[in-house]
């Protein structure tokens, strides 16, 4: 994960976001990184150039998002002349398919594009992690979603051999998008297991029900420690969405979100800035534990985690 050297210059870790035109990449990228809520993305229009945005992620990691327009001629031109440049030093390839396109006449073309990307990856960044998002799943009838996804997943895995891929079923209209990107984020942190153990230890001492670490810019879940099982497995994505939307509302009112404490008769939730790249959420359901004690411990832990998270991120 160390930055690879090319002609003496350190190339930062690159994440490629690719896929055919109107697969939903730009909306997706905007929602995850530029904090647009789904309703806003309809105004974004068609990407006609390479959107080469540098997003600082997890501190030292720079996500180099190549949102290639995907419009037919553009993609063909760009591919040929820039292939080397695009596909070198890639840590992660995220390929997006529009499910409706995969189910229709365009399927062959879709798969062709995908295969050329894979070939280029195999040639220039053999060890890159590959994630495939089967997107716009909200357009599939609810009762058929699982079956449709499983079929496509199997097909794509077969097509991709010998390269291994991980598939996700996603939509900008529910928490599945976050789940996929969280999983991608998780795979990018080298010391994740140690981080998880430390979080578990912290959770136990605070006598908290759950402690969650979010990436600061995107509110994607990096890690969590649980002492009390919770029935809603989608709670992280829901909380991410809620906080992001609240954060957005705050910025519209010219206020910067920094943290919140939510207390009711069942629990207290503390959400606060933690390290330079993370937010922490601590849930305590024991009513006898005063807020100040939990906040005190979070403050104490802050410095220690700061050092650790910094060390664990590839430069």
């Amino acid at each position: 994960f160390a930055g690879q050297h090319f002609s003496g210059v350190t190339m930062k870790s690159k994440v490629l976001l690719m896929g055919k035109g109107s697969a939903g990449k730009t909306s997706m990228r905007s929602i995850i990184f530029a904090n647009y809520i789904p309703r806003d993305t309809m105004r974004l229009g068609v990407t006609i150039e390479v959107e080469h945005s540098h997003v600082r992620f997890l501190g030292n990691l720079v996500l180099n998002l190549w949102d290639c327009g995907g419009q037919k001629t553009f993609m063909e031109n760009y591919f040929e002349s820039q292939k080397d440049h695009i596909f070198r030093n890639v840590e992660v390839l995220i390929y997006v398919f529009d499910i409706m396109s995969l189910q229709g006449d365009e399927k062959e073309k879709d798969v062709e594009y995908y295969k050329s990307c894979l070939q280029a990856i195999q040639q220039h960044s053999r060890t890159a992690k590959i994630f495939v998002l089967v997107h716009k799943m909200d357009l599939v009838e609810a009762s058929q979603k699982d079956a449709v996804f499983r079929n496509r997943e199997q097909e794509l895995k077969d097509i991709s051999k010998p390269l291994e891929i991980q598939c996700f079923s996603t939509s900008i209209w529910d928490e599945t998008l976050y789940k996929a990107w969280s999983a991608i984020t998780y795979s990018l942190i080298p010391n994740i297991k140690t981080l998880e153990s430390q979080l578990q230890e912290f959770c136990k001492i605070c006598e908290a029900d759950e402690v969650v670490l979010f990436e600061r810019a995107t509110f994607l879940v990096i890690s969590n420690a649980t002492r009390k099982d919770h029935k809603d497995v989608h709670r992280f994505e829901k909380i991410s969405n809620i906080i992001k939307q609240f954060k957005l509302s705050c910025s519209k009112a010219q206020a910067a979100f920094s943290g919140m404490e939510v207390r009711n008769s069942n629990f207290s939730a503390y959400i606060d800035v933690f390290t330079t790249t993370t937010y922490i959420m601590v849930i305590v359901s024991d009513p006898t534990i005063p807020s100040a004690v939990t906040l005190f411990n979070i403050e104490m832990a802050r410095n220690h985690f700061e050092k650790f998270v910094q060390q664990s991120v590839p430069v």
Partner: protein
Amino acid sequence: AGFPKSDLRAILRNLLDFCKLLRMSLLRPKVLPQILNQVVNDGVTAALLSDTKGSLLASSGDKKDELLKAAIIAGIWNSYDAFAKEGMGAKDLNMVIMDCEKGSLVIVPVTGILVLCLFVEPSANFPLIKSKVAALKTHLDSALKALVS
């Protein structure tokens, strides 16, 4: 100083939990009230520990309006602390004793960032209580030193 030392020492040892993985100490949430419990007797009706911002960390004894009391006591301490230093040129304020209608408050600082307050009945043996507070403060100071540094 008027309470079973061995009990207090045992409880104090439990106050901080050293996290092996994090390589640091954290506060065990439920031990502070146990510590304060040790002084709630012989004329002391309640004990309270808060931070200088007025947030309650722990209380023992009469818990009525504990959050409000924590805030008020921190306010009282901060005012007199500022007054002693700026107004009277003192280096440190050691203790505030407030005689009220129904009893007294004894307030002392702990590790520079916390405030300990005892609520004392009019009939209590005041010199004994003053020495209890001083001893408890010393114990808490040394127990929390690891955290604050």
